[in-house]
């Protein structure tokens, strides 16, 4: 199964697990499986419109999936995804 690494602030919503095994053929599908396994993550990853929050980046083997095919990016069982925030402010 594909592995997703969870950033520290979201681990309270994954029973303290840092890495979660997820199933699915695309980035969108594995993120769907992640939030099915841990529904409390949903509000932290997705905004009210149902889109990934703008600051949430998903990296597939160190490449930003927005630069590949976004949610349609294919994933394999051996792939490793990381959820990383980008930050901004004033």
């Amino acid at each position, binding site marked *: 199964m594909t592995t997703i690494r969870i950033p520290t602030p979201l681990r309270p919503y994954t029973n303290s697990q840092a890495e979660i095994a997820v199933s699915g053929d695309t980035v969108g599908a594995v993120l769907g499986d992640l939030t099915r396994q841990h529904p409390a993550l949903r509000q932290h990853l997705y905004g009210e419109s149902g889109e990934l929050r703008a600051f949430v980046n998903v990296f597939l083997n160190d490449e930003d999936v927005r630069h590949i095919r976004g949610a349609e990016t294919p994933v394999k069982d051996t792939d490793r995804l990381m959820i*990383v925030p980008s930050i*901004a402010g*004033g």
Partner: protein
Amino acid sequence: MLTITQVALGAIRAHGEAAYPNEGVGLLLGTADGEGKTAVAALPLPNTWAPDEQANRYQVTGADMLRGEQEAARLGLDVLGFFHSHPDHPAEPSRWDHEWATWPWYSYVITTVARGRATVTRSWQLREDRSAFDEERVQLP
């Protein structure tokens, strides 16, 4: 509560002064134990906002954040939060800090840099319902 070691605080303040009159930014690295966090290192990152607006804005790309996360992992540390400077402004979250806040739990450490000298350092955390920042208790060296 957040404890900031002398080394980490020194790096945060030095980076704020070096970036002045612009905002400097970076990652706060350390260990977390229950509710308590100890920041042992500060990792400056590039402020990629438009150069002519960096006096009151900052932005760090996802790619730079990924490198920071990987550096933390290499050191066996967690990313506890972020630090940034407010040149000639109070060490309190601005409207933009709130608007673009990420997740609760992270420490948002803000340092006032007044006329080029780092003065006040405070830390803030986003509420669970994202409605506001609350000040986090900080133990400084």
